[in-house]
């Protein structure tokens, strides 16, 4: 096990490795855990995942570079991903992206100088019925109009939420939803990575 990782991440790595008949299958989950450990997918992170899976660092780099969600450069505390695929495009996604670029002062693919917010456009977020849609650390806001998108950025800057909760953002800034969201969601993201517990980033709202 990678000895300098936090005990929690070491435990998670072992848990993930135990789930698969072959260790190589753990490459993707371990890349998420490594990114959580290092802040993003560093060269060291890829070497560590290689050691854990028995693959070579080159094989892991080939995997990490294939998937857009593995960020191999530093990423802001809040990763704001604007869906610009067809259904969101038809309902004004380009104006939402422009508003967010204007409000943050950075362009698509960049991070604010204070390291707080990264902005990117993404292909379909699966929120087509709630277009235009944006996610923050992969927690979704649907029906986000340009003015509300500006307010969302301001809120991230000022409130600096420790846990990014979809329900909270939807209530404050969202509009049309793809479907009734139904049950209240109690967990959210604490890093710009998918907040899924075995991968190490989900956290329940304390309130």
């Amino acid at each position, binding site marked *: 096990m990678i000895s300098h990782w936090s005990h929690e991440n070491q435990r998670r790595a072992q848990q993930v490795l135990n789930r698969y008949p072959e260790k*190589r299958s753990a490459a993707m989950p371990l890349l998420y855990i490594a990114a959580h450990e290092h802040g993003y997918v560093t060269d060291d992170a890829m070497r560590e995942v290689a050691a854990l899976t028995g693959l070579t660092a080159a094989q892991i780099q080939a995997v990490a570079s294939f998937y857009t969600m593995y960020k191999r450069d530093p990423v802001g505390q809040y990763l704001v991903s604007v869906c610009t695929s067809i259904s969101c495009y*038809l309902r004004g996604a380009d104006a939402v992206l422009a508003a967010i670029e204007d409000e943050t002062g950075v362009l698509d693919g960049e991070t604010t100088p204070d390291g707080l917010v990264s902005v990117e456009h993404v292909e*379909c*977020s*699966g929120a087509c019925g709630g277009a235009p849609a944006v996610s923050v650390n992969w927690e979704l806001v649907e029906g986000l109009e340009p003015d509300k998108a500006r307010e969302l950025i301001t809120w991230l800057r000022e409130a600096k939420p420790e846990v990014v909760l979809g329900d909270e953002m939807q209530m404050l800034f969202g509009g049309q939803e793809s479907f009734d969201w139904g049950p209240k969601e109690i967990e959210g993201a604490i890093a710009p990575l998918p907040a899924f517990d075995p991968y190490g980033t989900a956290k329940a709202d304390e309130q």
Partner: protein
Amino acid sequence: MTSKILLARMEAHPADSNTLARYLDTGGYEALRTALKKMKPEDVAAEVKASNIRGRGGASFPTGVKWGFLPPDTRPRYLVINGDESEPGTFKDRMLLERDPHQLVEGIAISAYALDVQQAFVYIRGEYPKPARRLQRAINEAYEAGYLGADILGSGFDLDITIHLGGGAYICGEETALLSSLEGRRGEPRLKPPFPAIEGLYAKPTIVNNVETISNVPWIVANGGAKYAAIGPETSSGTRVMSLSGHLKKPGDYEVVAGLTWRDLIYDVGGGIRDDRELKAWVPGGASAPWFVPAEHLDTPVTIDDIAKQGSMIGSGAVIVMDDSTNVVGAAHRLVRFFSHESCGQCTPCREGTTWLERILDRILHGYGRPEDIGLLLDVSDNISPGLSWPPAMTTICPLGPSATAPVVSIMRYFRDEVEAMIPAPVGATEAPADGTRGEAAGD
């Protein structure tokens, strides 16, 4: 319309349809109990085959037939649930995972019993952490209650389910790419044959089924395959969750029975066009599907076969509606840009072809189109998919590249005059500014 199958629980109990308590309270896990206690695995498979259910992920392949491809003697076998979704316009699996995850867990358990599988994986796209959390909580509850794990309900049948998150790659929805990804590789599709049922995960026999397909299994076992087959037209049996998006008054996920017309779906179910504008075109089955237009298709039935006969597909059940304000070149460009971005890069016709289609559409969109671009778009498309027919002829390992030609062929077929009108006349034509800046987008 027949009563709901997949959405019944979430509509009746919106606040807690995802919990085990509510699932049990509404008859949950009874079908699993029946299957394990009273049915042989082959009896369960026979019910699924009798239901005539066809895969809800895109290819509409009969599920029971797919199951029948497993070689009888090779073990272990694996069951992999495809929750990669990702087809632009599609958001049904997200709802099924978030709002009724036990329905899927029970469907997996029953299916695994029928297929003699002890290990199942659910591949969920990385952008769906909330659906993954909901499903994981359901799996945890099911383990605690004895519906998963060792010796389920005292039957001697064992099953483990593992969720695997993707990394943001549409191509992993293609079943062989999904298996590559699940093996810790780049999500590159593999040549078929061998089909996954023969050589899938770790080169072992593997069944890959969509989230929605397997979510139907508890109902099929509880009520019998024949009853499911009796719902709707013969070759489009059962209900289907359709994702409606675009310029509609009421976009959303709707569970429908095949056989209604597009007019019913767009104007009744979807509430009609926003601001009461005119309908211009729609994509009938996800971004890969050739478009339909009101003059030809509005009063035709929504069934798998009727759509196929008219040169398109129901695909993932995603309907993307465009009103008369839509710049069709802009819409086609956005669709092609998606395929260009998501091409895995293995096959030259797809990797190069989608890139060039995007560039040519981009320059037409921004007022720099050339008269020869009309022919060039069709020529490049023809090089990816010779003959430009549907279903598409293939020059590639998987259908991603050929799918990218669908929007191009569609705008050429129905809106060629609009495309031509965006191309400046050759005499006295606008030249690109020498400073390299782009002009104003025409028609935006």
